[in-house]
Every structure is written in structure tokens, then in C-alpha cells.
């Protein structure tokens, strides 16, 4: 299989971005964008379509099995994980860009620290021992699976960095606490939920389609809205 990778590159935050086209060939039908990036970086002799040396393409990866969220980027116009994007599904050429809603550090690396800042603003931690039983156990499991990759924020029409609305990447972890924290200590959390999560979401569920962890976002939304807005706990 032969494919042309069109990578949006930038030496550092302030540098001018440019697209570099790199031909890549592989026999491995399971090869992903992550495979290609790793192989290109491991071979210092790689040249682009014009014969110019490619050098190291900067990107982040860790698990290589779609479990850590490190390698989120925009591939063929869609935010997804590089280690989950099979080249065989990409056609003859594919555009690879960093996530667009976060500040770029270099090449495909963006600074996603706003995700973690927002969770801090939400005060997401257990104030008291958790009490999860029955259905809440399943909800807590689902809500613990978020990778903090940022794909959902990239696609969301209502989210931007620094805005009041914190998006799905905060809705999911908040659901964990709403379902497991005792009622008595939830007042602040409910207030924060209404302020930063409930109001801003248009419920188009574009986020659900791109979530690489396949999290049941609508299920969690219904559940958390019931608790935080309607004060109803589903047994």
C-alpha cells in the first residue's frame, strides 16, 4: 500500500506552518498513522515528495493501543487517535494536522493543559468516601474511562479554550463524582455542573461520534442532568 501523508508542520509555536508531503509505503494492512510516524522518525534518511530530508516529526504517543489519548490529532479532517487510524482506510492521501483548538507546541503536539485546568475549576475530587451501589457502579465505570484526549472538544461547536463551557471531556469525569459522591456534599458540584456543563451543550452529540473510547456520552449526560439539574437519582 502506498499513501501520501500531508503533514501540517511547524518547528515551534511561533514558526510559520507548512504542509510537508511524505510518500509512505507498507505491506502491513494493520499499519496506522502512528506506525507511519514512528517508522519515519526511526529512519533518519526519510525524504519528502520533493526529496528534502524530513527530520524528526514531533508528536506524542505512549500506549499505541488507543488507551492513553496521547496521540490525538486531526486525520482526514476528523479528530482521532493516530494509533487507531488505519492507513488502509485513509485512501491515497491523507491530511494530518494537530488538534486546532489548542495552542501548538511543535508539529503535531498541542498543549492540552486547559483540559486539566477545567477539571480543577470543577473541583473534581472525592470530598468524602464514595458510595456506589447497583446501577451507579456501571455508571462510575463508564465515567472513569475518559482518556482526556480532547477529540470531543475539537469537534464540539460550542467549546473553545478558555470558555465557560467545559465540554464532554469534563462532563464524563464529573459524572463519576455525581454518581458516587454522597448527596450531602454535592451542592457545589451540582452548581459547577449547571454553570460549566449543562448550559453550554446543544446535545447534537457530535462528540459521541468521535470519542475514541466509545464512551456512552448520552447515557452519562442523561444521568448527570437528572442528578445535577433535576435532582433525581436513578436507582
Amino acid at each position: 500500500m502506498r499513501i501520501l501523508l500531508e503533514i501540517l508542520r511547524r518547528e515551534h509555536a511561533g514558526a510559520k506552518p507548512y504542509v510537508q508531503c511524505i510518500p509512505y509505503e507498507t505491506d502491513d494492512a494493520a499499519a496506522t498513522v502512528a506506525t507511519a510516524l514512528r517508522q519515519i522518525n526511526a529512519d533518519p534518511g526519510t525524504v519528502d515528495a520533493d526529496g528534502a530530508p524530513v527530520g524528526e516529526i514531533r508528536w506524542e504517543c505512549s500506549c499505541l493501543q488507543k488507551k492513553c489519548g496521547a496521540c490525538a490529532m486531526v486525520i482526514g479532517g476528523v479528530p482521532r487517535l493516530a494509533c487507531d487510524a488505519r492507513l488502509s482506510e485513509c485512501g491515497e492521501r491523507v491530511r494530518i494536522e494537530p488538534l486546532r483548538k489548542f495552542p501548538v507546541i511543535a508539529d503535531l503536539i498541542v498543549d492540552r493543559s486547559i483540559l486539566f485546568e477545567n477539571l480543577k475549576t470543577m473541583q473534581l475530587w472525592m470530598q468524602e468516601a464514595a458510595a456506589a451501589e447497583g446501577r451507579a457502579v456501571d455508571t462510575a465505570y463508564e465515567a472513569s474511562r475518559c482518556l482526556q484526549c480532547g477529540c470531543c472538544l475539537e469537534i464540539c461547536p460550542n467549546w473553545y479554550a478558555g470558555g465557560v463551557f467545559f465540554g464532554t471531556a469534563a462532563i464524563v469525569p464529573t459524572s463519576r463524582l455525581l454518581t458516587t459522591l454522597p448527596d450531602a456534599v454535592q451542592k457545589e458540584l451540582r452548581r459547577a455542573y449547571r454553570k460549566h456543563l449543562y448550559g453550554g451543550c446543544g446535545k447534537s452529540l457530535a462528540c459521541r461520534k468521535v470519542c475514541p473510547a466509545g464512551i456512552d456520552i448520552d447515557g452519562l449526560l442523561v444521568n448527570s442532568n437528572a442528578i445535577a439539574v433535576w435532582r433525581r437519582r436513578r436507582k
Partner: protein
Amino acid sequence: MQRIHIIGAGLAGLSAAVTLGAAGIPCHLISLQPSERAQSVLAEGGINAALDTMGEGDTPEQHFQDTMRGGVYLADPNAVANLTGGAPEIVRRLESLGVPFNRGEHDLILRNFGGQKRKRTAYVKSSTGKIIMTALIDEARKYEAAGLIRRLPHHAFLRLMKENGQCTGVRIRDCYSGMTADLPGTVLLCSGGMNGLFPGMTTGTTQNSGDVTAAVFAQGAALGNPEMLQYHPTTVGIPGKRMLVTEAARGEGGRLYILRGGEKWYFMEELHPELGNLSPRDVVARTMYFVRREHGGSVYLDMTALPEDTWQKKLSDLREEIEHYLAIDPKTEPIPVQEGIHYFMGGLDTDAEHRTNLPGLYAAGECTCQYHGANRLGGNSMLGALYGGRRAAQTILREGLQEAPDQQPEFREMPDALDAPASPGFIRPVSDILLSGLGIVRNEQALDAALGALARLHPENAREENRLALAQAMLLGARERRESRGAHYREDYPQQDDSLRKTTIAVFADGQVHVTFRPLPERRM
């Protein structure tokens, strides 16, 4: 109060950070990437604790016995007794942090895991590590908001600061800006295993390059049992790595077979009747190696007889994963599996209080040689990381605090000999050489050849030099341990030798690696 500097934000680093936070002691939590991306999120099958919720009369003492036997008596018995004694409380604490462990009517369900005679492994489906990490990350956030934990989450360890043989701080680099800072104070390493020595060949993450261990080894920190690598019996190749098929697959009833004369032979059940498919990992991996050598073809993991309920409640995530990567439905079809490098029992040498040989330097988690001896039992490593991180923090609270102002790190342009990374052209041959000597079955000839080949390489920068020394320590440890024990199997010395029931100690001094053996302490209590 001066901040404690923790390198690594996986289970061990987080556990240490929240322990310090709860005591009101500030720390830096330094990692290449945020906690969500640490290897700990990959852990699947579960965490061990003798909670005895299954009515089998399990006790911490039995957990101790299994851990010692599994590690073929090469672990420090006092440290292991601490670990197994502390395990139930660790798991209960995780529960109170909201970890939704699989539950029965009244309490947690525990599952069978390799090398253990009792059901002792608490789990959350087959994503236990991820779910525990989420809870601990939330807990750490509490102390972040209070200013006690200060994260430096895109920062690389460069080297220790040292004075008169003591560790006096750490130099780190901000990978985003490229700038460097020196942080004076006590240092705790929680930097994970040495996957980077075997690129593409391990089940773990690319973040754990082994560079931290290599650098501190070159700076005088001793290594324990560097030859002890764990090959996990059931892994499958996916692009760029070996993917683990959790031991829980066998814990829930999966069986291994090979075709012998066209017939399925469930060899573990016949050759190792006591624990069968759930024998310790070293035993399973080695048996697979030998039956394959004799009968050819692949070993298969057969899960086709597992009941529907098990797939739904306990292994749903595993099934999805196998279907995604192998296009095989494990419910209806056996999957071909192979041994893959999974865990490093060896690493930085610490005492039971997690002190290294350098005053001011502590270590916990997979980067250490602690708790697992010659073979780690499944479910004991998350426990070791959580317990070890906490124990290390407690030691630091007792003796490692320093009255000095808490300063913001000052990052500046500061060239360092360790700036240049090891090049792919160096990493690859080192990995090939290590694999040629440190397979599942080893011998003196291959180890000598590997050491010779290593000596002919030409490192071109400081990182490559460090990596070379680390590789040498592993091979020398394997050569000098002229016996077979746990994961270290020498076909030229197939017997266990009781005079070698000692820790292999490797130190780097005067530009050379020296290997000696240190007797193990007696059990005190």
C-alpha cells in the same frame, strides 16, 4: 518546606504524591506526559489483596507465601510481608475513592490469577489500571488545587544533582520549551520499567524509555537483579508493540493448547497439573517455548467455552480489543498467542523502606527491584506500585524533609551532555543484542557473544553510553547467575542453586559495570 521531587506520575508516583499531600508536604509531580498517558492505565486484570471475600479463608500470610514462592525466594521477605499485610487496606482505600470494583451481592468479587492458590485479585472488568488511575488522579487533584502537588507534566528527567555521593536534587527539562531547571531537594523515582531497551517488543508504553534508570545507574545508583525480565505468555503482535491478552482470560477459564499430531493438546494441564493454565508466568512462558520447539506451530488460547455471562460482565473490553486488532471473535475461535516482554522485576535496588544506595534518593514502582524476586505474580505489580509509592513517601516524611524555602523552578537555556537522544541507529542493535542473550532460555555462550557484541558498539553521546552500561549490567547479571530461577532459565545450569539465593547487585564505577551477589535478609516477623 522544600518540595519533594517525584519523577513519574503513574500509580507509584501518584500514590506517593497523595501520601505527601495528606501530610501537608508539597511535591513536584514530574512526568513526560500527564498521568492519563502513563503505562499504569494499561493494567488490565486486577490487583491482589487477601480480602477473603470469597469464603476461602485467604490471609495476608498466604499471599506472602504465594508471592515468595512465585518469585522463587529472591524477594526481600520483610518487604513482601509489609506489602501483603498492607494490601487489603490499599484496596479498601481505592474503593472509598470510588473505584467501581466488580462486586457480588455483599462485597468485592475476587478472581483467580496465576501462581496463586486463592481467589485474591480484585478487578474492574479488564480495565482495572485505567479505572484506578482515574480515581487516584482525582484524589491528586485535590492536593493540586491546594498547591501541595505541583505538576510538571511535560518534563523530562535529565540527571541527578549530586554532592559528596549524596543526591541533592534533580535536573529536568521542559519538553515544550526545551529549557532546563535544577530543583534542589529530595528525589523519588517512580519512572516505570525499561521498555525502551526493547522497542516494539514489550506490552508497555513508549514513554518508559529506560533513560532514567540508565542515567542514575551511571551516576552511582545500584541495580538489583537486572537480569530478571518477565515474559508474559499471552501476547499478540499489533503494529509497533506486543499487545497483552490479560491473564484474567485464563483466570476466567481460558486454556492453552498446541496441535500435537493434529490433535489439540492442553499441555499446561498435563505438564503442570497443580496450577495448570494458571501456573506462574515464567513456568507458562517456558513451557510454551519448549512445546513449540518440539511440535512446531503456534500456541493457542482457547476461550470458546467461557459462559456468556463472563464475557458480558468480566471480559467485555477484552473481547472488543481482540476483535478490533485480530479480527477474531475469541468467543468462537481460539487465538494464536506468543510470549512477550511484559515486566521488569529488576531495577533500582532499594531497601524495604524504598531507599536507594544514594542518600537523598528514593525509588518505587516498576523502576525498582522490589517485591517480585525472580518472577512477579499477576496483580502484584499495581499493588507494588501503590504500596511502594506510599511507603517511600512515608520514609521521606520521616527522614527526607528539608527546611528550605519552596521555590518556583527557574527554567533557563542550559546545555547538558544528556540533551542529545540515543539515536535509532544505536537503540536497534542494543535491543537485538539484548534479545539474543536474554531470551526465555539462556546460556553462557549466547551471553558471552552478546557481551562481546555490545563491547564493539560505539556510543556517540552520553545517553548512548548510559544505555550501553545498563545493557551490560543486564547481560552480566544473566551470565553470572549460573543457575535457573524464575524468569531466568539457563539451559546450561537448569537447576536452582541455593548458594545463589541472593540479589544480583550491579554498580557502575570507574567506567565499568561490576556485578556481585548480596545475601537476602531473614524474615523478622
